[in-house]
């Protein structure tokens, strides 16, 4: 019980922390909206040429674009800019020592903080681009409230996957001291395999199958399909299962690495 309240307080701190930077939030909303408009125009041209590409009609393709923009900072779909740089820096500088003698769990602490951040960015950076998209274009948004709830739950599962992956990125600093290279690589991989460039169902054959099976599809492709009801044979429950399985596996690996790292940890600096 005490632990729950602690992590709730940490999450609240994460929320407030991002809420402090109003300028950054405003700039982010602006960028996401402009990018959304540009990509939407490209998609319109593409879907005019190839209707039903990847099984989406044009309205669905445009919905995917705006969900992508809304999720961009929530799920950290580009080069990540959340807790991982900070955690990696703490490892590099030795500040991690301070975290280790605290009576709480490192992974849970950062997860709570990241969820707090994500909630803020969902509200602060997700809602406006989505609303602009819905005003300017004809989107395939559901009217049933339960679909939106189902979508939010899928977003939550996606966040666990997103956090889990970025936690691994940060932990690499224990071995490499500098995690920024790994973060760059992660960013490029994530951008492509989450479907940010093109929805993953557009890719044919074995490559498409692999892309859709990788954890990054849990960040955007899966939640978007849950929202639009285009999850296919998998259905909503199957989508959840897919996301939860990845989340469990990746968070598990994170725990394992964390144990190894802190056991042989060399806390830097005096």
């Amino acid at each position, binding site marked *: 019980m005490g632990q729950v309240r602690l992590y709730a307080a940490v999450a609240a701190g994460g929320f407030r922390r991002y809420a402090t930077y109003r300028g950054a939030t405003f700039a982010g909303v602006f960028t996401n909206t402009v990018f959304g408009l540009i990509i939407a125009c490209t998609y319109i041209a593409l879907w005019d040429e190839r209707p039903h590409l990847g099984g989406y009609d044009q309205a669905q393709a445009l919905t995917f674009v705006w969900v992508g923009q809304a999720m961009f900072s929530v799920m950290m779909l580009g080069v990540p800019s959340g807790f991982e740089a900070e955690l990696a820096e703490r490892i590099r500088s030795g500040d991690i020592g301070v975290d280790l003698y605290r*009576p709480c769990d490192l992974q849970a602490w950062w997860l709570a903080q990241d969820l707090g951040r994500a909630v803020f960015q969902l509200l602060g950076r997700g809602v406006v681009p989505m609303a602009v998209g819905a005003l300017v274009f004809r989107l395939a948004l559901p009217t049933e409230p339960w679909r939106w709830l189902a979508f939010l739950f899928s977003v939550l599962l996606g966040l666990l996957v997103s956090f889990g992956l970025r936690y691994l990125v940060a932990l690499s600093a224990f071995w490499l001291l500098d995690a920024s290279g790994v973060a760059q690589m992660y960013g490029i991989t994530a951008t492509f395999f989450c479907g940010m460039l093109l929805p993953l169902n557009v890719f044919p054959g074995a490559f498409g199958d692999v892309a859709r099976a990788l954890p990054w599809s849990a960040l955007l492709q899966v939640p978007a399909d849950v929202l639009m009801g285009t999850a296919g044979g998998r259905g909503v429950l199957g989508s959840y299962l897919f996301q939860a399985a990845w989340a469990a596996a990746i968070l598990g690996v994170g725990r394992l690495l964390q144990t190894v790292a802190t056991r042989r940890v060399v806390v830097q600096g005096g």
Partner: protein
Amino acid sequence: MSDTVVDEAVPGAASAAAFIEVDGVEKVFDVRRKAGFLRRTRHEVRAVDSLSFTVARGEMVGYIGPNGAGKSTTIKMLTGILTPSAGRLRVAGIDPSRQRARLAHRMGVVFGQRTTLWWDLPLIDSYRLMRRMYRIPDGRYAENLARCVELLELGDLLEVPVRQLSLGQRMRGDIAAALLHDPEVLYLDEPTIGLDVVSKVKVRAFLRDLNKERGTTVLLTTHDLTDIEQLCRRVMVIDHGRLVYDGELDGLHDLGGGERTLVVDLERELPPLDVEFARVVRVEGARQWLAFPAGQSAAPLVARIAERYPLADLSVREPDIESVIARMYARDASVAP
């Protein structure tokens, strides 16, 4: 290092109530260095070497030594964030690195160069978090916070984001953060680094109070010897990972081969005085400075001078601790491998 004296006669130190026990502890770092293309050489850095001491509950001990002596490494092992390479280490009967979580609630740590505070949030938010983390009962939290706020003068700072605090303000904030959960033992690694004179006085008074009233055991590392002089009766000196002195602060004077100074005012200007066991180190008009061994009484010296020279006035100056320690560090450096 055969000539080092490890004074065992510290009050309470050897009693059964040893709270911190360090017995033959070593810490060896493996360092890899680039030696040309793709080649790396491995070598060992022995940061702490067969270190043994005990600290009784309620003691306040100064832990000093030159840069790189192994002070921070010792503290990291005591807090459990580093595992010793060899030896036995117990705090309150608990092995810190094995049972870090069990010990966490009972200790407070301040690393002067690091912060436990949340950078982007107001100071008070960090404290609220500590309260949840350490599950501090409401009454206790309110009381401790009020006390810290008053004594460390944090009142105006509570709503300020930590990143906007000055170094000294942040340090005071960090000290408070380490104490909200009533730790039994407090490790301070350079807690007065970067503090101005006024803040230092405040922090020292606060620590003295804490130790006296709450009986908190304190291990204090610092490069400011005034901290030690004002706070600690017992001091441990470490150099190259080894304990080279453990005893009363006063004992350091004798050990460091210290000299006292006799300042004499004569009735008129004279050439440097000639007296046994003392040598003139400075002459300024009618005033002369004579150095003599710290272990020796000044009385016979004064008598002899008064007998032979026109003495107007005199005073005796104790060797200052800084120069004693400086000499000690320098000597150890020349002996070390």
